[in-house]
C-alpha cells in the first residue's frame, strides 16, 4: 500500500506519481489531502485500487480502463468520461456530466448527482456501463443514452427536491433507466416510455443493487421495498422522419 500526500501538489505531478506506481505493480494506493486535482486515474489501466481522501477534480477516471477508485468525500464534474472499464465508488455527491459516452465499468455514487448524468452512455456486446446514484439527479438524466444502465434511488427522503429533473431520457435510443419510485411522464423526453418491471428486470436490477449495497453497507431490502419504474426508448431511430431526401 502506497500513500501519497497530495496537498498542494500540481495535478500533473500527482498523476505522474500514480501512473508510475501502478505501472510498477502497486495494487493499493491511498491519496490523502486531495483537493481539486484534475484527471486522477485518467487513462489508467491495470488492476489497482486507489482510495481518495478529499475532493478530486474534474475528469476523474476519464478513459479509465480497469482500476477501482474509492472517493471518501464529494467529487466534481465529468467523472468516468468515456470510461472503458473499472469502477468508481463515491461516498458523497457528484457533479454534472457523469459517465459521458461511458462504454463500460461502474459508477456508484452514494449521494446526489448533477445535470446530464449518463449522457450518451454506450453499450456494445458484453460492455454494459452502469451508473447508480443513491440520491437525486438534475435535468437531462440519461440524455441521448445509447446503451448501458442508469439507476436512480432517491434514498434520502429528507431532501424535498424532486427525485429527478426535467428532460429525463431526452434523445434516448438505447439502454435502460430504472427509477426507484414513480416518475411523471411530463418530465420525460419525447423519445421514451415508462414501464413496470418484469421479473427479468427485477433479477437484473437486484444483481446490480446487491453490489451497490455492499459498497455502501446498505440493506438491499430497504432499497428494493419501493417499486421501481423502467424507462426505455420507444425507438432506436427517434429522428428517422426528421429529414427529407
Amino acid at each position, binding site marked *: 500500500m502506497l500513500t501519497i500526500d497530495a496537498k498542494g501538489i500540481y495535478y500533473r505531478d500527482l498523476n505522474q506519481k500514480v501512473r508510475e506506481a501502478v505501472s510498477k505493480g502497486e495494487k493499493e494506493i491511498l491519496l490523502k489531502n486531495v*483537493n481539486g486535482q484534475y484527471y486522477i486515474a485518467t487513462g489508467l489501466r491495470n488492476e489497482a485500487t486507489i482510495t481518495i481522501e478529499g*475532493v478530486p477534480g474534474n475528469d476523474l477516471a476519464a478513459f479509465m480502463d480497469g482500476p477501482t477508485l474509492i472517493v471518501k468525500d464529494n467529487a466534481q*464534474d465529468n467523472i468516468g468520461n468515456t470510461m472503458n472499464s473499472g469502477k468508481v465508488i463515491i461516498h458523497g455527491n457528484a457533479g*454534472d456530466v457523469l459517465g459521458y459516452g461511458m462504454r463500460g465499468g461502474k459508477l456508484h455514487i452514494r449521494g*446526489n448527482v*448533477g*445535470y446530464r448524468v449518463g449522457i450518451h452512455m454506450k453499450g456494445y456486446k458484453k460492455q454494459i456501463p452502469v451508473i447508480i446514484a443513491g440520491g437525486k439527479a*438534475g*435535468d*437531462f438524466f440519461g440524455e441521448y443514452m445509447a446503451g448501458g444502465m442508469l439507476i436512480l434511488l432517491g434514498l434520502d427522503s429528507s431532501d424535498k427536491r424532486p427525485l429527478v429533473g426535467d428532460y429525463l431520457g431526452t434523445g434516448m435510443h438505447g439502454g435502460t433507466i430504472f427509477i426507484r419510485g414513480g416518475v411523471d411522464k411530463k418530465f420525460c423526453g419525447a423519445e421514451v416510455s415508462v414501464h413496470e418491471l418484469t421479473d427479468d428486470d427485477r433479477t437484473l436490477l437486484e444483481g446490480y443493487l446487491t453490489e451497490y449495497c455492499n459498497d455502501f453497507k446498505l440493506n438491499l431490502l430497504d432499497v428494493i421495498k419501493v417499486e421501481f419504474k423502467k424507462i426505455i426508448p420507444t425507438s432506436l431511430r427517434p429522428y428517422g422522419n426528421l429529414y427529407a431526401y
Partner: protein
Amino acid sequence: MPTTQVEGIAISPLLWRYFVKPLTEKSEREVANLEDDDFVVRTVMKINSEIDGAYVFSSGKNMGAFKGVGNPGEIARFFKIEEYDGYIWTGHTRFPTNTPGWWGGAHPFTLLDWSIVHNGEISSYGINKRYLEMYGYKLTLLTDTEVVTYLFDLLVRRHGLDIETACTALAAPFWKNIDDMPNDEKEEMTALRMIYGSALMNGPFSILFGHSKGLVGFNDRIKLRPLVAATKGKTVYMASEESAIREICSSPEKVWSPRAGEPVIVELEI
C-alpha cells in the same frame, strides 16, 4: 493607486484612483437632470468610449475592483490586496476565451457598486449589447461579460426589479414550465419574458454578482457551467468547483449545487 513591483508583472497600465463626488449643485454638472448614479454611469461610459486608451474599471462607492493580466496571486500582491478589508470577496482567473488578455478585459466587470465575475460565454451577447445600447450603455471592453454588469444595473437600479426577479429575467424559465404555472405566476413570467427577451442571457454561464448588500450566484437555464455553493457558520461560499471552496474552508457544513437558472441570493445580515 497603491501598487507594488511583482515578479511576473512586467508591464502594467498607468493606474490612477480618484475619490470623486458629483457636484452637489446639479445645475453645474454637464448633464443636470441626472441622478448622481446615472451621472456617474454616464461619465464612465463617456470616458470608456471617447477617451482613447483610458478606461474606468471600478466606479463604486463601497466596492473596489482589482484586476489585471497575470496570475491571481501576482495580481493580488501587485495591488497589495492584503491592505484592504472587505465583507464580500469575489475572485476570478480566466483563460481568455475570445479576446487576448488585457487589463480592461479581466474580471470583475463593475459599474457603481455592482461587480460580476463569470465562467462561460454569453452567446446572446449580440442582442444583449444592442438592447443595452438602447439605454445609453456603451460596450467598450471587448468581452461578453460586460453585458452582465450593465444588465443588472439596468434591471435592478434603473427598472427597480428586485434581484430575484432580475435573475429570473436573465435566466428565464422555459415556456413549457411557464405554461404549467398557476395563473398569476404564469402571467408574471410571460410578461417578464416578453419584456426582457432581449436581456435573456443565453449560452453557458455561471456568474457571481456582488453588490454592497450581498452576493448572488446563478447559472444558465440548462446548466452548461457548474456552480457549487456551501455554508459554514454565517459565511457563504460559491464557486465553479467544490475544491475551490475547500481550499479556503476545508469542512463546510452544507455543500450543494443549485439547479439551472435558480439563483442563490445571499443578503448581508445587518
